[in-house]
């Protein structure tokens, strides 16, 4: 094993923000190097500097002892054989898997494409990685996890010696993630170096050989992964010992009234779903991505038209054809993607928080700014948004604070039932903890909560009762006290095995349980 790349003394400013401060890392052939830190600690910035997105303000990068300067990602690929698989998918949706994988590496004679040899090479790649992607599938129609596989295949085609993976498992199911890890290990076995950036601590400990921890742009330490535990990593990330625990579960009394009752809900990707949420109860909705969890939430909320089903709120049947009717009935939906579905990124906190209930501060259609401001300020204090003022634009807040603004918006007038779809996606450890406390508090005050999450820990840690979905149906129900991740995963994956009757079921899936 030899050192492939050394980044020494890397420093980077963005405007007034110091993103990286004198960071030194060494990436070695045949080694998986984990990189962890809170949001904003500088992980992605370091990855992007090494990948040639932008140059450091100070510091040098050398490959095999030779100092290099990348002017672009293309430079990094050609000179340094470095490629990055980032948080956002860099694929061309209109093209096929094959075309995307070999993009820029097409083989041809006199400018005419020859597809035959590519097909053979593609088949070889598929054998090596164990992915099950059809070469002809249009990439735009694939799931995020499959698009990610396309990007990894592309990195392999380009024979990258260093592959940087930035938060790639966030959108993957446990099964898909475990297959990805097999691929990462095979990259290592081939003598390549991997820089693996993630929020998932157990994952990084299992996978990596060495782990570097960043805090506020500085390197805290680099050490062997075997010496770390999630608690030790968290402690050094935040500089103090944060409890990774959840607030104590307070189960609702047995006679607590049912607040939300759904019967026979059908919609595209949802088959005959019935569920109840009682006052003070947190019901977890678990399942793989694509199992229909978000679709249930959207159909109940009136965001998508449902083909059948009845919704009862507080004992009264309500007709919900559009979100406004759900809001009036006392339901709130915190959508899964705050940027795409939740917030007006370029508008102020005030404009976001008051939007749903604007009517309440309006007199004869005129918004009364003082009333509005006062109410918004109360509302964001309630969920502890940290911002200079309520006039601050949402895009200038950290992910955690943005998510809290979303909570403030939907709790502005507390609903009877809160449906929270992935409430902690893309927020740092501290904010996660605050959101858990908030959800538990709301339930404690008598709100019914339907919690959708891909993070099993979260469901297990918060929910009083857990429903598991697969292929659009609710297939299992567990008590929040006795459920285990193993039980839930088995329920969620049983369907996956049935679904893959196309011959590749044997691959990968068996390794889950």
């Amino acid at each position, binding site marked *: 094993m030899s050192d492939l790349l050394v980044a020494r003394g890397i420093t980077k400013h963005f405007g007034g923000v110091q993103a990286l401060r004198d960071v030194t890392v060494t990436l070695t052939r045949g080694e998986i190097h984990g990189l962890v830190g809170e949001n904003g600690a500088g992980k992605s910035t370091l990855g992007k500097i090494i990948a040639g997105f932008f140059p450091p303000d100070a510091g040098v990068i050398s490959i095999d002892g030779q100092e290099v300067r990348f002017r672009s990602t293309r430079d990094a690929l050609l000179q340094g054989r470095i490629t990055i698989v980032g948080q956002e998918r860099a694929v061309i949706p209109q093209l096929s898997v094959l075309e995307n994988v070999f993009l820029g590496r097409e083989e041809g004679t006199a400018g005419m494409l020859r597809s035959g040899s590519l097909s053979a090479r593609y088949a070889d790649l598929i054998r090596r990685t164990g992915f099950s992607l059809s070469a002809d599938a249009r990439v735009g129609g694939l799931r995020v996890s499959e698009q990610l596989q396309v990007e990894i295949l592309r990195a392999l085609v380009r024979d990258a010696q260093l592959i940087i993976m930035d938060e790639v498992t966030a959108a993957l199911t446990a099964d898909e993630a475990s297959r990805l890890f097999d691929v990462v290990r095979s990259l290592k076995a081939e003598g390549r170096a991997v820089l693996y950036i993630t929020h998932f601590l157990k994952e990084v400990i299992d996978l990596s050989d060495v782990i570097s921890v960043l805090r506020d742009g500085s390197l805290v330490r680099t050490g062997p992964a075997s010496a770390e535990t999630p608690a030790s990593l968290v402690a050094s990330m935040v500089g103090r010992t944060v409890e990774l625990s959840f607030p104590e579960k307070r189960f609702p009394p047995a006679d607590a009234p049912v607040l939300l009752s759904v019967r026979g809900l059908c919609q595209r990707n949802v088959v005959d779903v019935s569920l109840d949420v009682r006052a003070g109860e947190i019901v977890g909705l678990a399942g793989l991505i694509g199992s229909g969890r978000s679709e249930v939430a959207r159909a109940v909320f009136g965001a998508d038209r449902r083909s059948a089903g009845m919704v009862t709120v507080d004992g009264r049947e309500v007709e919900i054809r559009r979100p406004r009717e759900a809001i009036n009935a006392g339901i709130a939906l915190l959508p899964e993607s705050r940027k795409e579905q939740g917030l*007006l990124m370029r508008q102020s906190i005030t404009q976001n928080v008051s939007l749903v209930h604007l009517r309440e501060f309006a007199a004869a259609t005129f918004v009364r700014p003082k009333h509005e401001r006062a109410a918004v300020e109360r509302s964001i204090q309630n969920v502890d948004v940290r911002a200079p003022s309520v006039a601050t634009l949402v895009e200038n807040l950290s992910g955690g604070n943005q998510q809290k603004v979303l909570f403030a918006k939907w709790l502005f007038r507390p609903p009877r039932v809160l449906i929270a779809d992935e409430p902690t996606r893309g927020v740092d450890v501290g904010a996660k903890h605050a959101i858990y406390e908030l959800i538990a508090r709301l339930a404690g005050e008598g709100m019914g909560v339907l919690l959708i999450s891909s993070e099993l820990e979260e469901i297990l840690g918060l929910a009083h009762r857990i429903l598991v979905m697969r292929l659009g149906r609710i297939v299992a129900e567990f008590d929040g006290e006795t459920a285990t991740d193993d039980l839930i995963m088995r329920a969620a994956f049983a369907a996956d095995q049935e679904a893959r009757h196309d011959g590749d079921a044997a691959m990968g899936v068996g390794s889950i349980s």
Partner: protein
Amino acid sequence: MNAIDVTGTPRWWRALGLNRARLSLAREYAIVITFVALFATLSLTSAPFFTRTNLLNVLDQSCAFGIIAAGETVVFISGGFDLSVGAVFGLAGVVAAMLEPHLGPAAALAVGLLTGLGAGIVNGILVTVGRINSFMATIGSGFVLGGFALVLTKGYLITVTNPSYAILGRNKLFSVSYGTWSWLLFSALLTVLLKATMLGRYVFASGGNELAARLSGLRVNLIRTAAFGISGLAAAFGGIILSSRVQTGQADSGTGIELTIIAAVVIGGTSIFGGQGAIWRTVLGVLLLTLIGNGFNLLNVNPIYQQIIQGLIILFAVGLDAWSRRTS
């Protein structure tokens, strides 16, 4: 607040001392700086420029465009485009001129105005319920409406003989033309609508993030249709002012003006991506374009260069908008 700009700042920006925050600021105030600079230059270099007569003339020349552009601004903020304003402009004048002998001037002009409102609402329905891209929907409806005006007039000019038809376009109050007053009033009205009312907030929300607005319980289709209705009304308002001034209705009188209108909105700094913008910006954008023409005349510069300058200003304005919002 941490490391928002992970994409960083391109090297050539930094060479010019730029970063994203500064670009945002530049985008905010470029129109004010440009306008003040041009105004000062013209005041210093041309004696006839900074005179009461010339300035009032500049305002009067701008008023029809100013009104249409104010309406267009509302559509921009709601996340759409309205390319039918030229056709509506012509159609409204034709309708008013043709009805004048039957209804009298006031009612005829009012019907012209309502024609525009109706056309705008139809545009809104095409875009929302019909799910047609607003760019294409309004090009299509523009052709239809323009053709309709041609059918009505059979291609002739419709002349109005009743002199009281010309009051709106020619009379003055305190030596300021009715047209200019109309522009001022209409702009003030739309400013209040956008800034202080619920509908205004909803327009910003619908343009800023349509999905989020919908999930927040807003009736986005109604809101966007209202925005198109306002734009149609504004285009017709401009059309009847012109028709009144020249006492004719002419089907193709507005052909091509939609591009100038959109240019004025964009130069003012209202975003073509929706969710951001203001009426005062468009007022300055319209005045800037008129001043360039006015200044070139006063300074005896070949008007051929006028077009080049206007084009460069448009590119600069749109570029600032795009660069300032480049994020990861």
